[in-house]
């Protein structure tokens, strides 16, 4: 278990365009510099957002990593839920999950207007 190394790698990747270029062109050489288990290494290269969340990666670090991979917001949330369903609860850290797997916590505002939301001056 080397969550520290996983997060250190993601921290350096998230903040540096130079590291991002290397990650895209020669990920193995880059990842060799970090003391990672094969499980962690696989999750970082795939990338397996659900597994990384389960391992306990700080949500802020994981969110920026998902954005770097152009993973859309609702897809990012679903991948984390899928990771918990598949691997179990978050192993460590404070970015655990407290809602139910099927709970819709923050629905996207409907673009098809309902009569109520069209009423002027309702606020």
């Amino acid at each position: 278990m080397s969550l520290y190394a996983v997060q250190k790698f993601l921290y350096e990747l998230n903040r540096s365009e130079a590291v991002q270029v290397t990650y895209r062109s020669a990920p193995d050489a880059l990842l060799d510099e970090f003391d990672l288990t094969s499980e962690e290494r696989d999750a970082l290269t795939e990338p397996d957002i659900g597994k990384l969340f389960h391992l306990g990666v700080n949500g802020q670090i994981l969110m920026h990593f998902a954005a770097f991979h152009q993973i859309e917001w609702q897809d990012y949330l679903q991948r984390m839920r899928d990771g918990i369903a598949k691997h179990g609860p978050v192993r460590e850290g404070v970015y655990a999950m407290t809602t139910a797997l099927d709970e819709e916590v923050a629905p996207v505002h409907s673009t098809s207007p309902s009569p109520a939301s069209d009423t002027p001056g309702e606020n």
Partner: protein
Amino acid sequence: MPLVYAGVCSHAPGITGRSDQADPQVRDRFYDAFDAMRADLEAAKPDAVVVIAAEHFANFFMNNMPSFAIGMADSYEGPIEDPGWLGIEKQSVLGNRDLSQRFITEVMKGSDVSYAEEWKFDHGIMVPLHFLTPRYDTAIIPVNINCQGPPLTPLARAWAFGESIRAAADALPERIAVIGTGGISHWPATPDSGKINVEWDLDFMDRWCRNDRDALLDYDDLSVYADAGQGGFEIRTFIAVSAAAAGATGTVHFLEPIPIFAVSCTVASYALD
């Protein structure tokens, strides 16, 4: 001279990045509150804006985590996040190395701080600046309080740090504004994102507006985590602004939950003499 402005606001990345997914009626009133905050800030004619933020691993990691850090550069870059995702293009943001250095020198008389001549902004600073200094041509002095990597900065130390910021502003000839960004209750960047404890937020902001030191420090990390989530740890930035404006009364200009933005969206300020 005395602080010319003291306020707080939210900084969640969804505010700019997921603008199109929010209820436009609530969202637009929130943006209006940000616009009014910008007008108040501009009317105060600050020479520099001290932004007390809770960053998210853009500069500081658990290999060398400061409780408090202050930037000391003539310019800063940001956002570190994908610009399309955040809805903010990469910018060079104006700083003021000389003023930062004199400011830090004064703050250090009361609080132990790290300083940094390199600093990349993440959404914690870029989202507020997008609304408040949209041309990025007002000098920023970035400040960070560790709200991410436990052990976190104690709340009482955040208050003392705010007092040091006030003393530093008082000692300098420049017009200094201070803005805290963060919180309040939220469970960001997890599947819980959008869960908000509105009652807790209203109670916290009541304490903030009364500038009630004892009430603001009457929290511990375990209860904050249980009631307000890991995002609640960012109350440190609001508490520091409260201390910097000690004695003043605050007004909440906007405080409503916008779940797709993951937070009770907040704009508030103190009436300074």
